[in-house]
Every structure is written in C-alpha cells, then in structure tokens.
C-alpha cells in the first residue's frame, strides 16, 4: 500500500468526523437506515444475479459491483431534481441507487421483454431517464463525453444541477476522457467526473496502467480535484456534497478519485487469480467492506439493531429472489421486437415525416 493510501486509510478510521459533517448529521434515522438498506439491496441483488449467471440464466458479461456499494449509493443519495448520473458497465449499483426497482433490472439481465431496456441492453446497459439515469455504457471511457453533455444540457437550459459521470480507474487513460475534462473546465460545465478506483482495470493494477495519481491529472486542466475513501458512505457523501455544491452553485467541474475495491473478477467469467491474492480480497472484506463499515457506524449510533439488520437482510434477499422469479416468468422479446426502438421516427409513425426504406435485408 502506498503512503498516500495509508494516509487515507488512517483518515477514514476516524469516521466520526464524517458523521458530523452537516450533510450526514442532517440525516434522520429513517434516511440513515435507507442508505444502509439500499447498499444491502444492491449486494443481495448482485449475489442473486451471480447465481442466475452461474445457472446460465444470464448471458454475456456480469460485472459485479460487490465491495463498491458505498460509492454509488452515497453519490446517488445526494441527487436533486436536476442532477444526473451516467456510468460505465458496472452499473447495477447506480441503477438501484437512483431508485430503479429490482424486477426490471433482473429481467433485463435475463434478456426479457419486461427488462428496463426491454432485453435490448443487458447487464451493461441499464437506463432510466425518468430517474435521471443515462446508463450503463459498455465502452471504457466512452460515456464520459456524454456526461459532459448532460452538464452542458443542464447549463444550457439554465437549470441548477450537476451531472455525475462515473468511470473506473481503467478509463482514465482513454483519450475521450481527457477531451471531456478539457471541455468541462474550458466551459465551466457542472460535471463531476467520479473515478471509482477499485485498483484494477480488468486484470491490470493501477501501478501497471496509470502514471501518476489519477484525480490529480485534473490540475493539468486547471480543474478542481479530490480524493476520498469509498468504504465509508459518510465520507463519500461529504466529499461529493462539496463537489456537487461547487457544480450546482458555481458551475465548477471536478474530478474525484474514490478508492474502493471489488471482490469479484472484472466480469465474473474472468479468473481473478492471476493478478491479486485471495488474502488481499479477504483483507478488504474484513476491514473495509462498505456495508460492514456503515453497519458498525449505525450500530454505534444506535440506529441499527441486530433485529433490524436481520430484517433488512432478509427482506433484501426476498426482494432479489422475487426479482429472479419475475425475470424467470417474464416473456422474451419477439423477433418483431428486434426492429423496434432503433429509430424514434419508426416508433412514432404518427409523427413520421421521412419516406423510403429504413430497414434492409
């Protein structure tokens, strides 16, 4: 562990500081329980989806967020009416974080017509514009210019809001990310680029992929930056609240690196014994698991009790099981459905102005 990371780990050990930050101190008991419950729901949802994947109910890739929950849930819990979220393919936590129910998410992974994208997107491509959630994008870093565009849209329409554009630590070396950094700073776009640093871009450690420190690269673009520990949801909220306020009030963009960890492989189909040790995973799970960390904090605060912890967990498991049943029982899209949702105009024949043939053989 580098010196810098040790320092951050030390800082996070004194969690009381962050619990006293106004954004956290102002939470009532129900809101705190809700933050905890949402993290548990993400965890149980993903564990259930893993079982479905192993049972070959889910195709393609399954990029699990397990270990990172405090990041998405902390960030999404701060969203106001004009705040927007976009992320990459490890997108289940953000989807639940913005309030998407489990049923359409699980059904999407099962490839069913009742999925949030009607079975057309899959695990990597969850969307819910009604909740200001713009995906769910498959190409590393490709969503980051779109995040700048959401901020541009907010600003162009004269709204007070911010876009949070999430990426992994592997995305920071993509050119499109740097182009988006420059535009945000040049034009004062209300965007926060959130690097969820789980230590590995697929199987390549940060040390082997990225020169220098990640968020600090913002300095080259004359942009504000911050770092924080992603295992403590209070710290995530305190840091993000500052950056969101800067964006909403002053149209100032930021880059933030949130240090976190994933327990599973890049995708669950990938072996993860080539680049890290079991001990490393266990160590994080024991000392920094975001759900355990917050559970302890809330227990000490007298918010959580053993009975409540148990019931939240039982309910989350039951909800995930019910989502799997819902997905299982849902119909697949039809062959006719393949050609729908391609063009807005074809889906709205009453407004059609174009002529000619749009689909070919």
């Amino acid at each position, binding site marked *: 562990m580098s010196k810098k990371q040790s320092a951050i780990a030390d800082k996070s050990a004194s969690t009381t500081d962050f619990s006293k930050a106004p954004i956290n101190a102002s939470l009532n008991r129900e809101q705190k329980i809700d933050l905890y419950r949402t993290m548990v729901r993400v965890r149980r949802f993903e564990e259930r989806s893993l079982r479905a994947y192993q049972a070959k109910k889910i195709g393609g890739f399954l990029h699990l967020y397990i270990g990172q929950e405090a990041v998405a849930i902390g960030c999404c819990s701060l969203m106001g009416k004009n705040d*927007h979220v*976009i992320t990459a393919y490890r997108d289940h936590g953000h989807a639940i974080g913005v309030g998407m129910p489990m049923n359409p998410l699980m059904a999407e992974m099962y490839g069913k017509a009742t*999925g*949030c*994208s*009607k*079975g*057309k*997107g899959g695990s990597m*491509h969850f*969307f*819910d*514009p*009604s909740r200001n959630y*713009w*995906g*769910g*994008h*498959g*190409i590393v870093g*490709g*969503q*980051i*210019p*779109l*995040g*700048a*565009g*959401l*901020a*541009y*849209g*907010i600003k*162009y*329409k004269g709204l007070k809001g911010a*876009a949070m554009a999430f990426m992994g630590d592997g995305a920071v070396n993509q*050119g*499109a990310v740097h*182009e*988006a950094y*420059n*535009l945000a700073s*040049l034009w004062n776009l209300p965007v926060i680029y959130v690097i969820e640093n789980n230590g590995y871009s697929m199987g390549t450690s940060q040390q082997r992929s990225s020169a220098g420190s990640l968020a600090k690269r913002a300095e080259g673009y004359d942009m504000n930056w911050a770092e924080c520990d992603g295992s403590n949801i209070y710290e995530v909220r305190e840091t993000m609240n500052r950056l969101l306020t800067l964006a909403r009030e002053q149209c100032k963009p930021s880059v933030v690196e949130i240090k976190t960890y994933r327990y599973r492989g890049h995708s669950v189909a990938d072996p993860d014994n080539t680049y890290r040790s079991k001990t490393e995973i266990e160590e994080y799970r024991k000392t920094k698991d975001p759900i355990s960390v917050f559970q302890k904090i809330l227990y000490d605060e007298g918010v959580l009790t053993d009975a409540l912890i148990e019931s939240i967990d039982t309910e989350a498991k039951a909800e995930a099981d019910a989502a799997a049943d819902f997905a299982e029982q849902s119909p697949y899209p039809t062959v006719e459905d393949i050609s*729908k*949702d*391609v*063009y*807005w*105009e074809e*889906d*709205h024949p009453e407004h059609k*102005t*174009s*002529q*000619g*043939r*749009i*689909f*070919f053989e």
Partner: protein
Amino acid sequence: MPLITYREAIRHALAEELSRDPNVVVMGEEVAQFNGAYKVTEGLLEKFGPNRIVDTPISEAGFIGMGIGASMLGVRPVIELMFWSFYSVAFDQILNNAANVRYMSGGLINCPIVIRGPANGGTNVGATHSHTPENICANHPGIKVVCPATAYDAKGLLKSAIRDNDPVMFMENTILYGDKWEVPEEEYLIPLGKADVKRVGKDLTIVAHGRAVISSLAAAQQLEREHDISVEVVDLRTIRPLDEETILESVRKTHRVLLVEENKPFCGVDAQIAYMIQEKAFDDLDAPIKRVSAIDAPAIYSPPMEAEQLPNPQRILKAAIELLR
C-alpha cells in the same frame, strides 16, 4: 427565384432553424469567430451569439460525445466536422453512442443530433482528408445519412435533419460549396428518404448521390449530344432511409442501370442498391448492372490522378457506352 450557393443554402437552413427552435445549437471547430473553415457558418455568431454558435477545441470525440449527451436532455446540437474524415477519431461516440443509445435503452432515449460537414475527395488533400463515410455510417441502424448534391436539396434536407429526432449524418462537399442554384426565398422542407429524378431519360438509369450526381448530369448531357443516348439521373439525396421506389420506377422504364458514387466499391452504397435492384427488378433488366466508383485505393494526392480516381464525366460516359453496347 434567387440563385444562391450551396454554402449559403446550408447557412440559411441553419439560421432559419436557429431562429425557429431555441434548443438548436451550432458547434464545431472554427464555426463562430473564424466564420467557419469553409465559411458555411459566416455571420451566425453575430446574429445568434456565443451561446448558440460555439467554437470548440480540436477534440472531435469530446465535443461530439458532449453533443450526444446534451441531445439526450433535449438540446439539438448541429455539429460541424471541418472534414467528415475526422469522424474516425469520434467513431465510438457517433457509431456506438449516438447510433445505439436509443436501442440499448429500449427506446427510452433519443438522440436528436445532426453531424454535418464536407465528405469528399477531389481537392488534393490526400487520403486522410478525403473519406466518404456514408456507407460506413449507413451500415449502422439507428443512424440516418443524407448526401445532397444541390443548394436547393441541401437547404431543404438540412432543415428536415435538424427537426428529426434521430441522429442524422449530413454529408456535404467542398467542391459544391460555391455552386449556385435556384433556391426559393420562402421556407420549404425536403423529406428524408425521397430521391429526386434530376434528369428524365429513357435508355439508361444512372443512380448517384452527392457530387457524383453533378458528374453524372454532365455525362448525361454529353451522351445525349454525342451519342443520342437518353439518360435518366436519379439523385438519391438520402442514403438511409433509401427511396427504393424511385430507383425501381426508373429501372422499369429504362431497363439498364449504371450506379455511380465517390465511395470505394467494396461494400459501397451501390453494392446495396445493386442487390436491391436484382432482387426487385430482375426481370426488368436488359443488361447486368454496372458501377462506377472511386478507383479502389486510398485517395491519391497527385491532382490529375485524383481527378481520374473519382468518377468523373469521362469515366461515367465510358461505362454508360459499354453498358449500352
């Protein structure tokens, strides 16, 4: 009817749509203060101000991606590519994000963006600056592609493209920018997906798009004059959606088809059209379909040779005579 240039026609379309819809924003490299690398956007900054006419850094993936993101929130960006050739550095943004976002969201999102600029060879700028990617873009469901040949078409089609709720790739031509055509002063729209018979004839149908239409019209005149061959020229105007009916109607009349495009032949637009004609009008054909495309190599710099590489009137004329022999 006033004569205006192709360049002015595009400018007028932009100005009219900027006036009509406050969500329309023009952005790109040098579009504002510099008045446009090809002066298409000249004067728009003065008229509409820097919030509507936006100079971008040289950063195509960044600003096109940004435009796509903004379009998801209801802004309607019209983005200028100084050369369409530069789309390759924004390929992921255009053909992954803009093309797919509606589909992958199960129809919850749409992307009303126009990307416009010149896509042509013939100006001796070498292979990197001479791409004609209409076939590549049209290969992506979710995308619409327009290639106007005249000022009249450019104006009416661009206005339709800006009002369209799907991503439209609008491909112009630097060689045509200065050409003058009759364009009415009153407002008009040309629907996407409607071809135009630019010349009526009975012996041979030429199907073309973009500047190849102009070259085909020149060849047609010469064929009429010197060889007594009556050529019908069908201008596609839009590649996707494609007006198959106008093509087929002409084929059923002339029974002979020559397909002309500036694209490279392999997997070009005309490969699709040739397939379509043989499928739907096989019995109407009196001769095999012939094609004239760019000679199949990267765009050569050497000025006299580049003129040969592209489908010029002489190459079209020669192919037409061979076809009719």
